[in-house]
């Protein structure tokens, strides 16, 4: 029985939870905010403009990866894998989880190119491909931790195409996962970091 089924069956309630008062107050958290994540203006594959932090990250649960259209092997495998993940997450995507694939080659990946790409993979709503100013996107890449300490490796954009950042901005809860894990395993990780909202 999985966690959801367990809850659905009402077993969780039957097992008489013993909720204890918190002994210590939670530390106050100052949001990283736009200071950290930047409010770089990005354009989606649908041609909409958005500020990265304010419009796309704030109070949202997100799955973020980096991608570029010219990269056929790894990026396409990752995108294909994420299509399966989107399928498994169902209508949660666009509702309580947003998926962002940010271009590693923003000069080439124009919104039109990205639109083509998204259509090629039959990407559904709730998943946006993003492009923008190269310097700003590069900063974003560093801020989100898709970087290598070795400048030579860092310059190899293929090195940044196989990881996923999973997080919830409001809680400052962030994890990383391998983008090419089996979709079921990935969804397991996603559900752990971003548990599905429960109908009570």
């Amino acid at each position, binding site marked *: 029985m999985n966690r959801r089924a367990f809850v659905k069956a009402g077993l969780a309630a039957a097992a008489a939870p013993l909720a204890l008062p918190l002994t210590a107050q939670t530390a106050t958290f100052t949001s990283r905010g736009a200071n950290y994540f930047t409010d770089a203006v990005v354009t989606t594959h649908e041609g909409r403009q958005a500020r990265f932090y304010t419009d796309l990250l704030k109070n949202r649960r997100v799955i973020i990866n980096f991608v570029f259209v010219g990269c056929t092997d790894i990026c396409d495998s990752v995108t294909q894998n994420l299509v399966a993940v989107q399928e498994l997450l169902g209508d949660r995507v666009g509702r309580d989880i947003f998926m962002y694939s940010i271009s590693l080659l923003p000069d080439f990946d124009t919104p039109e190119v990205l639109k083509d790409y998204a259509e090629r993979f039959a990407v559904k709503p709730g998943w946006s491909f993003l492009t923008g100013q190269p310097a700003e996107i590069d900063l974003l890449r560093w801020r989100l931790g898709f970087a290598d300490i070795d400048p030579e490796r860092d310059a190899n954009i293929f090195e*940044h195409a196989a990881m996923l950042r999973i997080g919830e901005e409001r809680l400052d809860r962030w*994890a990383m996962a391998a983008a*090419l894990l089996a979709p079921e395993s990935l969804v397991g990780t996603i559900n752990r970091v971003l548990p599905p909202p429960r109908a009570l």
Partner: protein
Amino acid sequence: MPDWKDKLALVAQRNRQEIVNAKLSRREMMRLGLLTSTGALVAKSGLSSRAFAQVPLTPPSPISTPWMQPMPVLPIKAPLSPSALTHGHPDGTTLIDGAGRRINHQLCAYDSTGTYSGKFPPKKFYETFVREADWKFHPSWGPSKIWGFDGMYPGPRYNAYYGEPIMVRFHNRLPSRAKHVGFGLPEFSVHLHNAHTPSESDGNPVDFINSVNDPNEVNPLGFKDQHYPNVYAGYTKLNDLRGDPSEALSSLWYHDHTIDFTAQNVYKGMVGVYTLFDDKDTGDETTGYRLPSGEFDVPIMFGDFVFDRNYQPVFDLFNSDGILGDKFCANGAIQPYFNVKPRRYRFRLYNHGPARWYDFALYDGQKFLPFWQISSDGNLLPQALMKSKVDVAVAERVDIIVDFGKIQSSRVYLVNRLEQLDGRGPRGNILTPGTPIIQFNKVGPPVRDNSIDPMVTPLRMRTLPDPDFAALLARAERAKKRTFRFDRTNGAWAVNGKLFDPKEAIARIDQEAEEVWTIENQDDGWSHPVHMHFEEHRILSRNGKRTSVTSSDYGRKDTIPLYRREAVEVFMRFRDMKGRYVMHCHNVIHEDSGMMVRWDIV
């Protein structure tokens, strides 16, 4: 006046771009020490984290005057009667797979008459509450929030004995995961590092449990029972339920191991000490090996942190290299003093990381002082070795004997001589004198000391299980071989090019088999402290060179410091138990980013 100082202090995480954005002049940057005369940006104190090329400067921690507080001595955990445990006596089962499944303990059982049976029925019972608490890292600071066993960082010390199995109930009383903000996930899976433990009690990364403060989760009572048989490896072949005493372990530790969040949770404070005794290492200095005992047997856990202006630990959530701190703690206190009597002490040195490598030495202000190394990874050596420094990579342990009776100076410092600038590991630069972490003050008149003086009587301890190295090599030749490459692939930490998948066992090994594993690091940028669960191994060779008797690789190990471009050949055994286990990099940030493999004993 330009507010460049404020600009620098305000933003929590920064990189070169930010400094550029702050519009600092070269002169201002030089004044701040951000720029060398050649124009290269230098890493300041604080988290030395992401790329040097784009230095993310975390502001340094608040000022803390050293030697203002005594080093805490870890309290010894007291057992309870099984019926006194919260939620009642252990019932012979435990939770695995995110508490989604309940199974029987492999090696002990409970029956309806109220008795424990099986191979290793527990003789003592404990319970511990993992909770958020206020912790004072320094007397002049405000409190910091930690997550600790019994609300302490480090957690309490368990004194355990071979032949005396125990059961520990771990209660998750951490904040609700729906409300907790910041690093750390309030779920855990406790691993007892280097114990010979049945899989379901080993703290496998997927065997985490939720908090009682999340009553709608799958485990509303929020606890898990873990069974520690405290048995020497090898009892199956010997058919005696005792095992091979030369496999005895002594300085173990426990810590969270939950999948994807180990580094964050360990940095939150979820670590503690577990010491194992037997009829040789007795805990009584008048018997057995006669090692310094009681108040003179002192485990010390080292950890490094960065703190923000409100004294809260800072964890760079977007760093997958390995984070370093600018404050060094010993048993949860920043640069404490420790008053000692003029006699011998056994110090058990633990490095809980998350990413710092140490080289410890004793310094009296003028020179480095000799001491005795008596263990490697907490396993007592065949004989004491006189040393002037000891390397301790993340997760490694070294026990040392220091004779303050023979030291002239009344004040001695434990220093870290190893320079490390980023998560990649040390570059081999040895500092003189290094960073002082503990100040030892010799106080009072001479006191009774029944421990052996290794200067007078050679201290002979555990013989190795395979004392004949040539015979071991011959056995190794016949054993099955496997190779594990620890490397970086597509921006993530990997083993053999793959990232950790808890569903996939990369090796299925017959119980009682012997194998030779080659652990490789082809990357010249990084070092990895590689840890294998379950049994101690022997290092056969490093880079093709056979292990020599005088090398620190000689002896039983559970963690291999794997430096750049190295290949280490180890002899592995898989005795007595079945189930799933892991091997991983113990730079826990690497572990969380994929550098771990699951292997099963079948």
